[in-house]
Every structure is written in structure tokens, then in C-alpha cells.
């Protein structure tokens, strides 16, 4: 068998088209819902229409008698079997949480909670029978507003006795990372600038393209579970823990997965119930949610209320920031629900050098769908807060929005930098990214045009929004996670198998669902081992193939998983050395490895990796002095986080007659460290920008006063399409990370984190002279128009 020539040029940095795209974009692949097994049964769920109620009776008789029905199960039927869904992160030891059943037994805490399920021969029969189930509810007053929830005036879970799950705080004075924020506030009040602001981070729905789907094949030897999940390894462990099935008998496969955005970083009720149905019936079972179910019952994101106090001198030097926030957990704690605000808590200082910082976070329960990770997870909220405040500060000082930032940001020669929030920023160059963005955006020209339009009273005003962000990537050093109360670790694992035909199998513990790991990991290995890009196959997402791993979320895959791949490749090279020495009849010290070949220094003699792999396969010539195997494993625990950053500039036109905003131009300059594949990075930035802009302008999960999700379909929950977005100008600067071997950072969430404040800042900038200093998100035309009406009155 032939192998392709190793490319002479480096793979890392090559904008390769993604290996996985042909099958993904044509759909010629296995999505979970495409899987059909012999004798497979289908599930349909009955969900509570009420946000808060007691279940007084469930009549399943008609459903049981319906055509094709094999079983009907209620919460009472499986109460002893279903266990409780896990929360993996106690942010304080005394954290409170209600028991989280997969199926409600006698109390429902949000609209969409499962109260019964039907197992039938086909999906249509399951749906028909589900319609015949009659549930009697006694409605209870729903707790819907997070600020009211914090007062405990009415309880989301009466048995819990409070709505408050946890209170967590950080104070720079007591942590020894800075001064006393109250002193800074007092000083600002006496003779400086004090900005107080409340921000509502609206509830969002991850809205991944492929709704969640699960297939379970129960055999006595093994419980095989296919799930459209980001975290097959988590699912395996939790099926074992929650349902008491030995871990060694569980195999979880995440086949191709159509997006997640954090929304599939979860161990779900539907997964538990499908396993239970399969175990009870002894037949393969499938559950695929409808889009309506997905929007209503898959976990939501964001939903925080922030109260911010920024202290500064009259010149615009920030002296302190105080943050009080209330975070809506929804009805239950999911895997990392409670920690989402924490992941932002360390980022409120952004790229700036604040002398003092205080944050207090109160996590509360309400009768809404539980929240958890959604692209950015805590950091978008923090970044939005500080970037909105910096614009307000600029306005107060009468300074340019970029100038006020430069005054306060960390200079490139000051890295590594210990922040007031207690993190160590590895590297960055805010000056370079900002200079490049400014030029691409034609900042000065646009400012001149803005002035003209203001002066002429043009009904369409121009606004310029700035967002200079940083974020923490590479979740996460296990020690850090442990110190924060997370039960798991943050390492990643990889294996490399050198096949006899010269091909290379790379097995990764990360679980891509659109990110392109097959391509990027191939590029890394191609360079390291000197083998051809096309000779490398990357395997993932199956706990039997990749038994060790912690999956994909938190912009961790490259910085942690990719570095594990690199470490495994280094071990392969290491293991090959004594074998090469023996076969080449040379001294180990005379060998050098380059271009995929071990050569004897000063001679023509040498062997390629492919030749070595074949020789090891044959074993004929090995003398037994070294292990006859080139394959290697590596587990890598990251040394620290990495901190990508960038400068985003957005120009909007606001139609003051209708309140409509349209984005005229958008420039992003991101510094994500060393780039393995520029095309993948660009794709991540584009998608991230779209989702961040969506929070600014379009998306909001809205509930009515009874707790029903009003934005329960894509008619009301407005996910923008390409027609609603401008053509982005994206560029990069490259400041290598110092916390990993390749100098990579992370890019999965950057666009989302950066773009929301850029857009809202631009809108406010367009109409500030008309008396507007804020518009709540999403900044709908109606809200902008109302803000203009109020501005005109004041």
C-alpha cells in the first residue's frame, strides 16, 4: 500500500478544507435519528404544560390500549429506578438543589418537564398514544422573575424552603489580588466618576441545528447508547452512576452531531428515560425530540441580572468595579448550571488593570427550563458588562471609546499579568489588534460621517461600537477545577496507532460536533510525525474506541485535547527511537528525527515512520531489547488557561423613525495565538459573531405570566440567517500562548463573547445625542424606538 508524500510545507497554518465536510454538508452520514435497529421501539414524551403544579392523577388507560403501544410509564412507575440527574459543580459546600428526576413524580417545576412516556412500535403510534394520556394538575403559583425569586416571596420548590441555591463572592482585598472596592467607590463619589448600571442578560436558547436524539440497544453484554451529545464520556459515567449499570457494560457513541453550542453539554432526562425504556422492554429504543420540545425543554442559557458599579477618576482611570448578580438556574441544576456565572466571575475586569474588584453572585431557582452552558458560558455576560461600562465611561469623560480603553488596558510588555480577579493572563497584544481593527474599519472616516449625520439631523444615524475582549480558554487545569468545587477533572487524552500500511490512527478524547477536529488534529500529527495529512484518520466520539476523554466545550479541544495529541505523537517518536537504532544498527545517540524519518547522523541510512511501523508489525527483525510497538497514549492536564483577545468594531445605522438597526460593517481582529487552520478559525469566528449579534438584536426566550414559553418556535425565537447579517471583515494578530507547546489559544467562543457588546455599544452610540444611554437586549426596533421616545421626553 502506498502512502502519500509528506507535504514539504508545514501543515500547521495551512487553511485546509475540512476532511469531514463532504459527509456533513451532504448529510451522507450517521446522525442519531438515522439509526434504525431491528425491532426498534419509539418513545414519545408527555410534558407538563404548566410551569408549576402538583400532579394529582395520571390516567394512562386509553394510551395503554392504543394501537402499537408496548408500554406507558409515569414518574410513579419508575420512581425507584430513575435516580436523580447529577449536578457536578457545587460552587459552595452548602449549595442547595432540589432532587432532579428525569420524569416528574408528583411535582412539576417547569413547563416542558416530562410527566409520562409512551413506548410504541413506531413514532406515529407513540405520538398518538401520548395524546391520550390524561394528567390532572393542581396549579401552583409559578416563580418567574429572578429578582423576585431571590426574595423567597414565593417558592419554585416549596420543599426546598428557599429559592436561593448558592451565594458566591470574590473580593480582591480579601483575596490579596487588589484593593478595597468600597474605598474606590467612596473616592469616586467624592470627586471622580461613578457609573451605576443594571443589565438584563436575557434568556437564550442554544438552538442547535440537530435536535437531540437517542438510540439505546440493550443486550446482555452491553448497553450501547447513541446520543446527539457533546459529551459521550460524561454520559457513560452518569448512566453508570445514575442507573447502576456497570460502567464496563456501557458504550456511548456520539456519531456525527449537528451542533451543540453548550446545549449538548448535558446528561439529559431523555437519555435516562430511553435507557430505562430499553432496559424494561429489552428492545432497542429511540427517542428524537421535536423542534418544539427542543426549544422548550433542552437547557437554556444566559439569564442573569447584573448590577454594576464602576469607579473611575475624572481622567478616566478605572479604580474599581463592583458586580452584584443574580443568575437564574431555572427549575433544576444541570451538570454545571451553578458554575456558569462563576466562569464569568473571573473576567469582569476584561483586558484592564483594575486596582479593585468585588463580585457577589446569587444563584436562584425559578419555574423555568433549567439553564446551563451556552456558547461563552458566563464570559459573554462579563464581557458585555465591562465593555458597555467602558463606553459609558468614555461618554462621561468625553473621551474616545478606544482611547479610554487604551488608558486602562494591560500593555503588551506587561505580560504575563496577574489580574485583580486572580488569574494569570499568559500573553496578548491589545495595541496591535486594536491598531489593525481601527485601520480595517476606517475608524476615523466613520467617525467623521457620524458627526455629519448628527449635525444634519439625518433620520438614519450612524453609531460605532467597540468591544475589546479577552476570555479564558482551555477548560481547565484539574487543580483549578477542584479548588472551585467541580467533581471532575480538566485533562484530555489521546492515542496514536501506527498501522502496518503506513496509515496513522489518532484517537482523541474530545468530541467534535462541527469544530473540525478531524482536520486540525491531522494537521498537528502530520507535522509532528512527518506523515501525510491524508494518511491520518482521527477517531472520536465512541467510548469503546476512545475510552478516555473529557469531550468538547469551553474552547478546550485544541488547547487541551490537541496538546494531548501532540504529546502522544512525541511518545511515538520516542518509542520508535530504540527500534530504529536496532534496525539501523546505529547508536541511539547518533539518530536524529526529522521529516518523518529517523536518520543516522552523517549517513544516508534511515527509516521512515511507515517503514518502522511495518517492521514493528512484522516483528521479524526485532531483538526484544525494546517493546515492539510504536503506539502511544498521552494524558495532558493543562498548565493554565490561555487568554485569546481581540478588538471588534461595529458600525450600525439606526433608523430613528422606526427604531430599526442594521449593521453596516463589522470588523473583528482576533488574537487566538498560533493558528492550526485559518479557515476553521474563520468559520468559528463567523458563527460566533452571528450568535453574539443574535443576542444583541434578535433572540430572547420569553415566558408569559403563567410561565409558558411564548417564543416556542422559530416564528417567535428569531435566529438570524445570513440574510440578516453583514459581510464580516475578519483578521488576526498572532501572540502565542505561553501555557502550551504549540502556543495555541482557543476560538470556539470568542466571536460570541466579543460581538454582543460591540453591537449594543454601536446602537447606543448612534442615538446617545438623542437622550438614549441604554437599550435592553435584544435591541428590537420597538425597544430602540421606545428608548428614543423616552429620550426625547427627558
Amino acid at each position, binding site marked *: 500500500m502506498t502512502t502519500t508524500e509528506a507535504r514539504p510545507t508545514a501543515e500547521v497554518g495551512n487553511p485546509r478544507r475540512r476532511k469531514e465536510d463532504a459527509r456533513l454538508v451532504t448529510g451522507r452520514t450517521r446522525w442519531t435519528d438515522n439509526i434504525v435497529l431491528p425491532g426498534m421501539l419509539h418513545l414519545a414524551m408527555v410534558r407538563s404544560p404548566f410551569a408549576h403544579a402538583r400532579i394529582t392523577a395520571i390516567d394512562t388507560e386509553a394510551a395503554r390500549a392504543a394501537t402499537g403501544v408496548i408500554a406507558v410509564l409515569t414518574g410513579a412507575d419508575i420512581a425507584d429506578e430513575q435516580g436523580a440527574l447529577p449536578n457536578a459543580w457545587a460552587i459552595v459546600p452548602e449549595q442547595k438543589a432540589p432532587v432532579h428526576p428525569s420524569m416528574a413524580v408528583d411535582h412539576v417545576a417547569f413547563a416542558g418537564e416530562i410527566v409520562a412516556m409512551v413506548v410504541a412500535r413506531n*413514532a*406515529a403510534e407513540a*405520538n*398518538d398514544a401520548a*395524546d391520550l394520556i390524561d394528567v390532572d394538575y393542581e396549579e401552583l403559583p409559578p416563580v418567574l422573575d429572578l429578582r423576585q425569586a431571590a426574595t423567597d416571596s414565593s417558592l419554585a420548590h416549596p420543599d426546598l424552603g428557599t429559592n436561593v441555591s448558592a451565594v458566591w463572592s470574590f473580593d480582591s482585598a480579601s483575596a490579596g489580588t487588589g484593593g478595597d472596592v468600597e474605598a474606590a467607590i467612596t473616592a469616586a463619589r467624592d470627586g471622580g466618576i461613578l457609573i451605576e448600571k443594571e443589565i438584563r442578560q436575557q434568556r437564550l436558547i442554544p438552538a442547535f441545528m440537530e435536535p437531540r436524539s437517542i438510540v439505546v440497544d440493550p443486550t446482555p453484554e452491553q448497553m450501547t447508547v447513541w446520543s446527539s451529545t457533546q459529551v459521550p464520556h460524561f454520559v457513560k459515567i452518569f448512566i453508570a452512576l445514575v442507573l447502576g449499570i456497570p460502567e464496563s457494560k456501557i458504550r456511548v457513541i456520539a456519531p456525527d452531531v449537528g451542533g451543540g453550542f453548550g446545549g449538548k453539554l448535558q446528561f439529559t432526562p431523555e437519555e435516562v428515560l430511553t435507557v430505562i425504556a430499553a432496559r424494561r422492554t429489552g428492545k432497542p429504543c429511540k427517542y428524537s425530540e*421535536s423542534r*418544539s420540545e427542543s426549544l422548550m425543554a433542552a437547557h437554556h442559557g444566559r439569564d442573569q441580572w447584573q448590577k454594576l458599579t464602576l469607579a473611575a477618576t475624572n481622567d478616566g482611570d478605572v479604580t474599581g468595579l463592583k458586580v452584584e448578580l443574580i443568575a437564574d438556574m431555572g427549575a433544576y441544576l444541570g451538570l454545571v448550571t451553578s458554575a456558569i456565572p462563576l466562569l464569568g466571575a473571573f473576567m469582569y475586569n476584561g483586558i484592564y488593570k483594575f486596582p479593585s474588584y468585588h463580585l457577589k453572585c446569587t444563584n436562584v431557582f425559578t419555574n423555568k427550563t433549567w439553564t446551563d452552558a451556552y456558547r461563552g458560558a458566563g464570559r459573554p455576560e462579563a464581557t458585555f458588562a465591562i465593555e458597555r461600562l467602558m463606553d459609558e465611561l468614555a461618554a462621561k469623560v468625553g473621551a474616545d471609546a478606544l482611547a479610554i480603553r487604551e488608558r486602562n488596558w494591560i500593555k503588551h510588555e506587561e505580560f504575563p499579568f496577574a489580574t485583580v480577579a486572580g488569574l494569570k493572563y499568559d500573553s496578548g497584544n491589545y495595541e496591535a489588534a486594536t491598531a489593525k481593527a481601527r485601520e480595517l474599519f476606517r475608524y476615523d472616516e466613520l467617525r467623521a460621517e457620524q458627526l455629519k449625520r448628527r449635525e444634519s439631523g439625518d433620520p438614519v444615524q450612524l453609531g460605532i461600537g467597540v468591544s475589546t475582549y479577552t476570555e479564558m480558554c482551555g477548560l481547565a487545569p484539574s487543580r483549578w477545577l477542584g479548588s472551585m468545587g467541580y467533581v471532575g477533572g480538566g485533562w484530555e487524552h489521546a492515542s496514536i496507532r501506527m498501522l502496518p500500511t503506513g496509515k496513522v490512527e489518532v484517537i482523541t478524547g474530545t468530541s467534535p460536533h462541527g469544530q473540525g477536529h478531524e482536520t486540525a488534529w491531522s494537521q498537528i500529527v502530520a507535522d509532528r510525525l512527518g506523515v501525510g495529512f491524508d494518511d491520518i484518520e482521527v477517531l472520536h466520539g465512541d467510548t469503546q474506541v476512545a475510552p478516555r476523554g473529557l469531550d468538547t466545550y469551553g474552547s478546550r479541544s485544541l488547547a487541551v485535547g490537541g496538546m494531548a495529541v501532540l504529546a502522544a505523537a512525541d511518545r511515538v517518536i520516542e518509542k520508535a527511537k530504540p527500534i530504529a537504532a536496532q534496525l539501523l544498527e546505529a547508536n541511539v545517540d547518533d539518530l536524529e528525527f526529522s521529516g518523518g524519518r529517523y536518520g543516522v547522523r552523517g549517513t544516508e541510512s534511515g527509516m521512515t515512520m511507515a517503514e518502522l511501523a511495518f517492521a514493528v508489525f512484522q516483528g521479524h527483525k526485532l531483538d526484544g531489547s525494546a517493546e515492539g510497538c510504536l503506539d502511544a497514549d498521552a494524558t495532558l492536564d493543562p498548565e493554565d488557561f490561555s487568554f485569546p483577545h481581540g478588538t471588534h468594531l461595529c458600525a450600525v445605522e439606526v433608523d430613528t*423613525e*422606526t427604531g*430599526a438597526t442594521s449593521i453596516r460593517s463589522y470588523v473583528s481582529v482576533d488574537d487566538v495565538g498560533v493558528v492550526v487552520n485559518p479557515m476553521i478559525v474563520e468559520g468559528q469566528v463567523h458563527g460566533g459573531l452571528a450568535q453574539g449579534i443574535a443576542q444583541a*438584536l*434578535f433572540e430572547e426566550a*420569553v415566558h408569559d405570566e403563567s410561565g409558558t414559553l*411564548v*417564543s416556542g418556535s422559530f*416564528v*417567535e425565537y*428569531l*435566529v*438570524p*440567517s445570513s*440574510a*440578516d447579517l453583514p459581510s464580516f471583515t475578519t483578521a488576526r494578530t498572532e501572540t502565542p500562548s505561553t501555557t502550551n507547546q504549540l502556543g495555541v489559544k482557543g476560538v470556539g467562543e470568542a466571536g460570541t463573547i466579543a460581538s454582543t457588546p460591540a453591537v449594543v455599544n454601536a446602537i447606543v452610540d448612534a442615538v446617545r445625542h438623542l437622550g438614549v444611554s441604554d437599550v435592553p437586549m435584544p435591541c*428590537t*426596533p*420597538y425597544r430602540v*424606538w*421606545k428608548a428614543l421616545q423616552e429620550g426625547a421626553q427627558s
Partner: protein
Amino acid sequence: MIPAAFEYFTPSTVDEAVALLRDQPDAKVLAGGQSLMPVLRLRLAAPETIVDIGRIGELQGVRDDGDALVIGAMTPHSTVQADPLVGEHARLVSLATATIADPQVRHRGTFGGSLAHADPAGDLPAVAVALDASFVIAGPDGRRTVAAADFFEGVFSTALAEDELLVEVRVPKYTGWGAHYEKFNRVAQQWSIVAVAAAVRLDGDSIAEARVGLTNMGSTPIRASAVEAALVGRPATPEAVREAAALAADGTSPVSDLNGDADYRRHLASVLTRRAVLSAAGTG
């Protein structure tokens, strides 16, 4: 979700379809399915019988009938939008159709289906009302014709009886008129929050005749007669049109929802009417 089970018929003539509607229990017409299918899949409705009119040839296409165009009920939006006769004699119809949803929806959704569905936020009803279209309806007792003004009765409700079929719509020719459909929404695929359909005939610099219809300003499409009257005989200048457009919200009763309250919609109606009329007159 999967719709509840139903009987499914595919008649090939209007008479057959009408007979099925009369004889089969709880029958519902299926045209392009772009509104009906979601309703069935969400199980908001579960008719026992579906009469698919997609194979009735005589319901398809646009034809010239002297002083009017006749548009078959089953003509897809994409066909209407591209049809040269419509472009020449009823440009307002082409322009409004082009704003509906996206290409996929426009390839399946139909002219007649949109009108029969009578969604207050649908774009074609206001156009039909503005242009004085008339609706040819077939029923067990034969055919009858209903004026657009009488066809729309309320939210999702029309003059069509349960056993009647909308066959075609006659649109008088507006050859040489300027037209514009000003649609206001938040994302491209969204239904109208408010929209204004305007057609004007100029005589020199002044407006000789005007037709203005409002989308989503009440439970049915609304003819902005006060605006029309105020425009006639006035020059097509921003000042004159602004004055007339200020009357757009007269007599309307828009809803309040996530996209805006009634006051905001009334405000939008006058802003959009001004823009629509000026664009139609070529002076916007």
C-alpha cells in the same frame, strides 16, 4: 411531531375536489402546505380528511383576461413573482410576493393558499384589498365571485365555506401604475410586523389615483381609504405624502405582541405608508 392520521385524497378536477369537501367528514384543503403542515404537525388541528389540490391543472398559472389578470389558486409564489404579466399589470403583487419568507417557502406556498389562510400578518391579503381583486369560489352549488373587501372576515377566517374551494383570483390591470410594498420585519424570514402596499398613478407630477392597503393593522387587511383620498390631486412630494400618510392608522386596531404594541404599529403604519407611496411614485 407527526400529524394525527387522516384520509388523503388527490382530486384532479375542481368538481371532484368540491364533491370530496362536501362528502368527506371534516375535510380540509391542502395547497402548498406551508401553513397547514405546521398546524398538523403541531397537532393544533387534526382534520379527518385532507384534500390535496396540488394535482388540479386548472388551478395553476396566470392568464390574461382582457381588463384583468387571472391567477390560479395553486400558482406557487415563485411563479407569481417571476410572471411577466403580473410584473407588467400588477407589479404590487410581484413585489409583495417577493418579500414572503424564503425561496423554499415560495416554491411550495401558493397564491390562493395565502389568501385562503387569511393570516393578518400575511402579505398578499392587503395587496388583494388594495387592488380590488375578486375571488372566484367553487362550491356544491356552483361558482360565485366575492370582492376582496368582503372576502376577509377575521383572523384566519374568510367568506369560504367549509365545502368551498378558492379557484382563482381576478386582479384588475394596473398597467403603468407605480407600486411598492414596504414590509417591516426583524429578520428576513419573518412575517410582517406591519407592511404597506401602495400603488399610484401619476398625472404629471401629481397623484391621480392611489391604492393603499395595510398588513397586520387589524384582524383583516385594511384599505387606507383616508390616505388614498388625501393623496389624490396632491403632488408626490415628501411633504404632501407625509401629511396624507399621517392618516394611515385611522380606524385600525393592531395587536400588541413581542414585536411591538399597538401604538408602535400605528406609528409604523404612517412611516411605512409615506415610504411606500413615495417609492411607488418614484420620488422616495
